[in-house]
């Protein structure tokens, strides 16, 4: 610590109050959550909350749903984001700013607004999506998008891809612009076609950005709640019930605070593990 320069010391002092508040809030909230997950309503120690969670069939179902929801959303967001970033990278500087603003709009749309909007678009009585698809002769009759369990899951994933792909795209675009152009020029002289250039230069150069984006979107998607809540409320049946919508339901609808705390702790551990694996592989990558 003695090696710290004067300015650095000042900087630490300035940050300290905020750091303390954040850490205290975090510690308090996590602590009280852990405490209530191990106690009964009367305050006695118990493991009942956890065993209730593991014997609840809806929890298993919601975990499977969460996996489907995360894989579908993240794959879609990353692939579409990469495509958009590659296209944008071809534009001139001025165009990039202009087009990025348009693209970032879905991300900037309020969750509630996006949820209601998609719900209306999917509507099978007067939804715009069915209308457009029928007029383009892609489908013959209106599709009830949110009316069966599997269709509802696909529909919310599509909405979530729309909501989130632009952010991945922005990350990738930033990454793409750091790749030195002479790499491509050298490869071109060596006779590598565009597909080879993409696989041999773009992807390896972009790998650190891809890993970080992947980690962030996975964690965000697991925790993302408003879209599903607005569009389907977890239904039909338990078709789109994810762990977070179920935690909300347990806590705020059924008033089972302790069981909700237990389930959110389990989710916390899972997310922590995912983040740990990612961070370690990113650190290894950088050390190389």
């Amino acid at each position, binding site marked *: 610590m003695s090696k710290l320069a004067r300015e650095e010391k000042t900087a630490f002092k300035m940050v300290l109050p905020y750091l303390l508040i954040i850490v205290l809030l975090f510690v308090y909230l996590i602590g009280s959550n852990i405490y209530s997950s191990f106690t009964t309503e009367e305050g006695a120690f118990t493991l009942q909350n956890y065993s209730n969670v593991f014997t609840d069939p809806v929890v298993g179902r919601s975990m499977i749903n969460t996996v489907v929801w995360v894989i579908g959303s993240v794959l879609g967001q990353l692939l579409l984001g990469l495509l958009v970033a590659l296209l944008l990278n071809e534009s001139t500087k001025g165009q990039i700013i202009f087009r990025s603003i348009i693209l970032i709009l879905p991300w900037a749309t309020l969750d509630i607004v996006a949820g209601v909007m998609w719900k209306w678009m999917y509507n099978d009585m007067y939804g715009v999506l069915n209308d457009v698809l029928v007029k383009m002769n892609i489908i013959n009759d209106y599709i009830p998008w949110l009316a*069966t369990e599997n269709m509802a899951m696909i529909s919310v994933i599509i909405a979530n891809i729309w909501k989130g792909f632009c952010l991945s795209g922005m990350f990738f675009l930033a990454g793409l612009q750091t790749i030195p152009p002479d790499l491509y020029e050298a490869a071109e002289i060596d006779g590598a076609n565009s597909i080879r250039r993409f696989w041999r230069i773009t992807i390896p150069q972009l790998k650190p950005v891809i890993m970080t984006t992947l980690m962030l979107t996975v964690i965000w998607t697991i925790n993302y709640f408003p879209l599903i809540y607005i569009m389907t409320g977890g239904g039909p049946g338990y078709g789109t019930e994810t762990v977070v919508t179920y935690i909300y339901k347990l806590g705020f609808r*059924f*008033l089972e605070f302790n069981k909700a705390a237990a389930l959110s702790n389990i989710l916390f551990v899972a997310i922590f593990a995912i983040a740990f694996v990612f961070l370690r592989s990113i650190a290894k990558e950088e050390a190389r």
Partner: protein
Amino acid sequence: MRKSTLLVFMMLVVLAFTGVSQVINIWIGGQVAELDETWEMIVGKFEEETGLKVEVQLFGFDIYYDKLLTALQAGQGPDLAFADLGGWVPTFAEKGWLEPMGALLDSWDGTEQIWPNLWPTVLHNGERYGLPWYTDCRLLLYNQTMFDQAGLDRNDPPATWEELVYQAMKLTDASKRVFGYGVSGTKTEHTTLAYIIFLYGAGGQLLTDDYSAAAFNTPEGLRALKFYTDLALTYAVSPNAVTYNEDDYRNMMAQNRVAMAVGGPWSFPLIETANPDIVGNYSVSLHPYGATPASVLGGWALVIPSASKNKDNAWELAKYLTSYETWMTWIEAKGGPMPSRQDVCFDSPVLQDPKWKVIFETFPHAVSRPPIPEYPQVSEQIQIMIQDVLLGKVTPEEAIKTAEANVNAILAK
């Protein structure tokens, strides 16, 4: 150092002031929360008469429950609050968040004017925890223009299930996306409410009289489940049921797409906003029934949180808000919702309209939802039962058996 001392001092001053103030905080949720200036007028009169200060906070329905729940749990709620009659009062009372009101209600002369079937909704372990303020009951809302077009009598809506099927089929033209009756099937409270109307209309009941076990797995309950889901599956008189509920159907009704659906007094301003041309071309009637007339009631009560530091004044305000004079002024200004006081319902000239007459005639048939803390979980099982049948995952017989077992497990805890 001096600056921080000053800051601490200022904070203490602020704390001291908020601690001793005589302001009555009231939280208003539900549909009356939008009527801003009316509250100002009514509360202003109270402040003038008593010299007390009232702080009104209005909340939209969507956020109100979470807001109130969080505040009550943290022990820092308002002094007087609105609570939904759909099970909130006993739920909060069981947690020890509400002040018992039985003795206060006994000492007040307005108590006997409250519609008697409202009391079970505020009861917990034999004690009353709320004063019902406004109420409503579910009815059949129907579009008279569509009745005309289908060659039906616009003043003779269906009274029985047989007539309901017959008329709904005449009104339905699926190729044009026009439907006779809207079956609520979303995973929301609407679906449970609709099933309760059909269940009690078939002569069944949801839970046993002491709320200790499920009572809907009976021939009547099965008949209600089959008939309700058959409206969508067999007779095909409804839009895709699992995606819509009565709120959606009301909007479709405003556009002449759905002819009949569950609705109530709150629907009138909403359907007229959705389509101003519909005024005079829609009406309400007792919902068609299988064996006995039935409806389900809802509404809001005033409750005093036990964390309140101002309980005496809160009760004064509650009495004032529920007084004959206040209600007459309110109805004069707003035309609704339905007062919890019978004398206002029968005396107010505004409420002599034929649509209101139907409501007052139906109201005595209305049952309340089981006033127990487990009700939200019971309700979810009913929603799952109906969705599973509508999705064709299980037969009605299997669905009702599963739901009965799950509800019994919930109530046994």
